[in-house]
């Protein structure tokens, strides 16, 4: 197992390195981030040269990459084109995104597993069909549509009806929020509710479908038939033999999807005006800010690689039949 993990880790480092090279070249060749200044005759040549020097735009591409790489391995991601340190900005935006996706993932896991098991137990009946219809509906509706519908047809009417703000439609928190965490919590919840619900709806549905399928497989398995034949209580059969085994494939799917959610919260962040990683990335791409784009890439790539590895390891731990050579 350890040898397998180390081998995967080594591959991942190579993949990560190649990804940074590719993205660096693509962004660097996309245009000049100082183009607007260059087209403005009132910005002096001296200012342009100084900005170029500061951003290392005056150096050959590989020298620029090497500067970025040598700083990145030390945890320093350089400056944005507006002269801000990338590192603190990265962690600030990352923390905001985590505030959204951690509760969303926890709720989605509970909802996905619960709905999947429920649908499997009601296989072919109304509950199953209703559940599957909802799952496919949420799976097929674009994220921004869910977000806008929640804002326009749920949050705003409710707020107007009760004449106070229960749900906020933009931002992570109210400006100048004061007090301790407990005092600030209601404001956080009011801001977080809609984006979390949106993420839950687009995430839980596929997990529920997986869970339903895995549960049905487990119900039809020999070991469950044997457990029933031995006269075990149906609840014990369900919890110890059906759900436990059915969770194995779903666990790996969830581990893989978590990393995707991290990178994929871009639309939700935009709809609800959250200044998370996704918004920051879009801004970086728009500005051709290579250090911002690469910092985003590194975090999401590391998350994807780590969660892929975690999924593999979990699979082996949960299913003793799996052996790693």
């Amino acid at each position: 197992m350890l040898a397998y993990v180390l081998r995967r880790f080594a591959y991942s480092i190579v993949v990560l390195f190649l990804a940074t090279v590719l993205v660096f070249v693509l962004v660097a060749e996309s245009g000049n981030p100082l183009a607007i200044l260059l087209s403005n005759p009132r910005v002096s040549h001296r200012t342009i040269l100084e900005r170029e020097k500061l951003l290392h735009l005056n150096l050959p591409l590989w020298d620029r990459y090497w500067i970025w790489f040598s700083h990145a391995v030390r945890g320093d991601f350089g400056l944005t084109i507006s002269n801000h340190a990338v590192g603190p900005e990265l962690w600030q935006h990352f923390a905001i995104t985590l505030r959204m996706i951690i509760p969303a993932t926890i709720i989605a896991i509970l909802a996905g597993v619960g709905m999947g098991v429920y649908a499997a137990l009601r296989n072919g009946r109304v509950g199953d069909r209703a559940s599957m219809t909802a799952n496919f509906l949420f799976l097929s509706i674009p994220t921004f549509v869910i977000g806008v519908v929640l804002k326009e047809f749920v949050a705003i009417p409710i707020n107007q009806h009760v004449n106070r703000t229960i749900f906020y439609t933009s931002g992570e928190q109210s400006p100048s929020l004061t007090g301790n965490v407990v005092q600030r919590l209601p404001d956080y919840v009011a801001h977080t509710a809609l984006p979390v619900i949106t993420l839950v709806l687009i995430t839980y549905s596929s997990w529920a479908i997986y869970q339903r399928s895995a549960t049905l497989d487990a119900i039809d398995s020999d070991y469950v038939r044997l457990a029933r034949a031995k006269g075990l209580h149906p609840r014990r059969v369900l919890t110890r033999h059906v759900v436990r085994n059915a969770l194995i494939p779903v666990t790996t799917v969830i581990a893989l999807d978590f990393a995707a959610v991290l990178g994929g919260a871009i639309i939700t962040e935009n709809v609800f005006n959250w200044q998370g990683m996704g918004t920051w990335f879009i801004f970086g791409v728009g500005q051709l800010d290579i250090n911002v784009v690469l910092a985003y890439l590194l975090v999401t790539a590391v998350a994807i690689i780590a969660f892929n590895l975690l999924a593999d390891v979990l699979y082996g731990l949960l299913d003793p039949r799996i052996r790693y050579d």
Partner: protein
Amino acid sequence: MGKGELVRLMNLTKWAVGLASAGLVMAACSSSGSGGSSTGSSQSVKSGGSITYALDENLAGFNINTSAAAEFVLQEVLDQVWPTVFNADQNGTPFLNTELVSSVTQTSTNPQTLVYKINPKAKWSDGQPIDAFDFWYNGMIQSGASSITDIDGKAPDVASSAGYNQIKSVTGSDPANGAACKSDSVTGITGSISCGNGDTVTVTFSAPYADYKALFSPMVPAHEAAKVGWNTGFTDWHTVLSGSWYEISNYVENQYVVLKKNPSYWGTPGKLDTITFQIFNGDQQAVPAMQNGEVQVIQPLELDLATVQQANQLTGVTRKLIGGFQYQHIDFNQSDPYLAMTPVRQALAYGTDRKQIVARTIGEYDPSIVPLGSRMYVPGQTGYVNNGSAFETVDVAKAKSLLQSAGMTMGSDGYFQPSSGPQKGQDLTFTLKSTSGNTLRANIEQLLQAQWKAIGVKLEIQNETASTLFGTDLPKGQFQITLFAWVATPFVSANEAIFCSYTNSSLCGENWNHYANPQVDKLLTNGAAATSSQSETNDYNQADKLLWQDMATLPLFQEPVFTVWSNKYGNIVPNPTNFGIPWNANLWGLKAS
């Protein structure tokens, strides 16, 4: 950098240059104004309360005078924070901030000499007086002189040296309360000011600078900059001292800026206790936020029918569409052998149904917009004349006749074919470059394709990112026809850089079309030096007539500025200039019931 940012950066630059040019007509007299507190105040409001305004872009820092942070949204935030000698009202008319400077007098024209009388009560929020040292530092650091550095030895990042590079000296005199003169200096700047604590500032120019009203607007605190530096010292909001009605009380990057009343302000205080600028990822989310009561003022930059319709559903608000200073236009690159021929450009103009373009784009939500008849003024602005009436109605026959006169023959497929040049014997085809991802321009392009097909000209579309179009293609002349927006500021001398002969590369750096006409040059120069508003308007309109005659560019339409605000607040007056709507936010308040 998105197109909005580009346009706003251009706005900002043009405004900065243009602001003072309105003052050309008063160049020889003392300036006084309606003051910082008497403009835009017509409703009775009470003190106290708060308001939230939706900003549609992130802030890149707080020193708006650096190229790294020169953004319209930052100007909106700083309207009420950093002191400005001249502001611009809702009509684009500059007025003196008399609470800061009681008068600005031009005492000599050769050399041009200006005397600023600072209000002795004026001070920064840390208690330091606003004095001649601030004028000296702001003048020197933005001069662009190679000998001047920031405190760390690096070259200062300056958004524009225009005007500052013509300042010969800044001296101080008359310290408050008869105090003795005190010398001030800053690391990196050669020399010092002998009476930095003076309340009278004398600025002498090495060459006349008619746009002097653009200078010292805004000013950074010299004593603070001397400690933290110009380039990066003001990226931290804590160093942003106030010299105006409000000060920054909180800033969370990319989320919001909160202003509160500046307790050290010496003049009439602002009405509201706090003004919050909430930062949005673009404009789409601002309307629902307003509907939900999270913001009380919005001014979408990316205006479209859907946004207006969405805003029309809001209740308890005031909506206002006013003519803006930004206009869409088509440019012809005269380095192209066919577009170098005036009849070809005129033919394209006669073949362009501008009324149809207006009706099918911006006219869907603002029926008051008409085809633009001037490059110097916009409808509703003093001096506006429709100089392009000859091109107001599409004339296919005349367009075809002009193409024939330019040596084109009609092919069997309905397209003209040049008899010489690189397209000899082929269908006459032009490529239009614009910015990708802009729905308005994409719609115009499609309409143009159909309209020019009717006159026998093929049009191909090749859109680029804003950074490629404005960073490479236009400055290097790598285009035939382009479509984008300029800002026709109320300060028309700013147009000189666009329309004077391209051969003068230092002055006419934005003439990417290789257009040259000495008569136009002369009229633009005369306009900038005019001593009466009448002769100024005449000169610019004469220049515009020649530009129509030469068909240097084809103006399409002025774009409206759309503002929505809650009816609970009074004295909110949309301002199409680059001060933006917060230009008079010190007067905003909850309506007295």
